Structures are given as structure tokens and as C-alpha cells.
């Protein structure tokens, strides 16, 4: 068994496409119309074109808002992405106007930071432990 795809709920798929590709730097993999206005929209890391896909899933279900508001209120991220240098990535994203709820924090072998993806979620970036 492999982890082929995981998802985050996004308020607006067009805005999510912009943020996840233009700002974060992922690459669009699939973009297929589904129903009237939704899309099967996935992105992958530019370093791993055949790696795990992230599905930017429409947040249409009524339970999503309650679920996400509770997590965001407590600062809990919904996904984690690996970066080589958390501080450098923090500075790059901050200069692009990205809002961080947790600045880079060194905790033993791991450094993490948490930002708002502008689509309703908090995302954690982390350096992988050596």
C-alpha cells in the first residue's frame, strides 16, 4: 500500500490553485472538471513529479467549516510539508505576504513553522530530522 494522494479542503479552488502553485511553488498535476463547477485539482512537488498528489478539494460540505474553524482557532495545522530550511522558507513566504501563526521554532532536531494557506487551512512546514 502506498500513500498516493491526500487532500485539503479549500474555500475557492481558483485561489487555491494560485496559492499552491504561484506562492508555495507546487506544480499542477491534474485539473479535470467534476460536476457543474468543481474540479479534480491536484498538485505535486516540483522535485517529485510522480510523488504524492495533494488534492485541493472544494470545501462544500457543511461540516467542513465547523471542523476547520475549531482547528484553526487552536492553531492546529491540517497538513505538513517538508522543506530544506524552515527559516529561509519562512522569510520567503513572509515577504510574499503569507501570514504565519507560528514563527520558526527549533525543537531539538526538528524546526517547524505554521502558516495560513488563505484557503481556510493552517499548514506546517518542517525540516526532516537528519
Amino acid at each position: 500500500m502506498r500513500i498516493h494522494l491526500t487532500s485539503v479542503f479549500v474555500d475557492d479552488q481558483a485561489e487555491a490553485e494560485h496559492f499552491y502553485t504561484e506562492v508555495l511553488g507546487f506544480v499542477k498535476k491534474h485539473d479535470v472538471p467534476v460536476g457543474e463547477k468543481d474540479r479534480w485539482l491536484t498538485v505535486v512537488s516540483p522535485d517529485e513529479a510522480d510523488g504524492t498528489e495533494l488534492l485541493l478539494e472544494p470545501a462544500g460540505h457543511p461540516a467542513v467549516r465547523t471542523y476547520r474553524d475549531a482547528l484553526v482557532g487552536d492553531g492546529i495545522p491540517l497538513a505538513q510539508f517538508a522543506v530544506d530550511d524552515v527559516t529561509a522558507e519562512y522569510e520567503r513566504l513572509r515577504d510574499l505576504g503569507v501570514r504565519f501563526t507560528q514563527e520558526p521554532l527549533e525543537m531539538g532536531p526538528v524546526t517547524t513553522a505554521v502558516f495560513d494557506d488563505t484557503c481556510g487551512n493552517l499548514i506546517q512546514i518542517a525540516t526532516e530530522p537528519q
Partner: protein
Amino acid sequence: MLAYAGVVADDVFKALADPTRRTILDELTEKSGQTLFEICSRLSMKHQLGISRQGVSQHLAVLEAAGLVETRREGRYKFHDLNTAPLRQIAERWVVPHASGPQERTP
């Protein structure tokens, strides 16, 4: 007023009596304005404290009742700030001011 001050002090002493709550204050001293998630991360990763999120929430509620921690909503997020004012009240209760107090002993 005195009775009220006594109630405030009781809450502060109770809040400070617990080592985990003192650690939370230490971490908020290092950086004010933390989410619950960051406080939990610091306790588990930096201090190896195995406390549930609900447990940390309860500790924060005690600190908040004592006035040592204040919460602030900013958009969709909630941040926790340190407030040391209650500690000054305790200090001023026993520490004699220099101007009007007796001379400090010098060796």
C-alpha cells in the same frame, strides 16, 4: 478591596503551584502570542511533557483565571499572551519600597 486582593492572590498562588504551568509561563516569556498548538508543541518537544491537548487547555484556563495569561482573538486564530501584572501585586505585598522603608542591611 483587601478581600478582593486576597482572592486574586489565591488564584495566582494556585496557578504557580504547578510545575507544568510554570513551564508554560517560561515558554510564553520566551515568546508571547502563541497558539494552543505552539504551546503543546513546546511542552512535548522541548520539555518531553506528555500532556494531552485538553490537559494543556485546562492548565491555560487556570493561568487565565489568575490573570497570568490573556487570550486574544485575531481573525480566526486565538493567541495566548503573558501578563505579569499579578506577580507585581504579590511582590508589592511584601517587598518594602526603598524610599519609605527601613534601611537595607549592609555587611
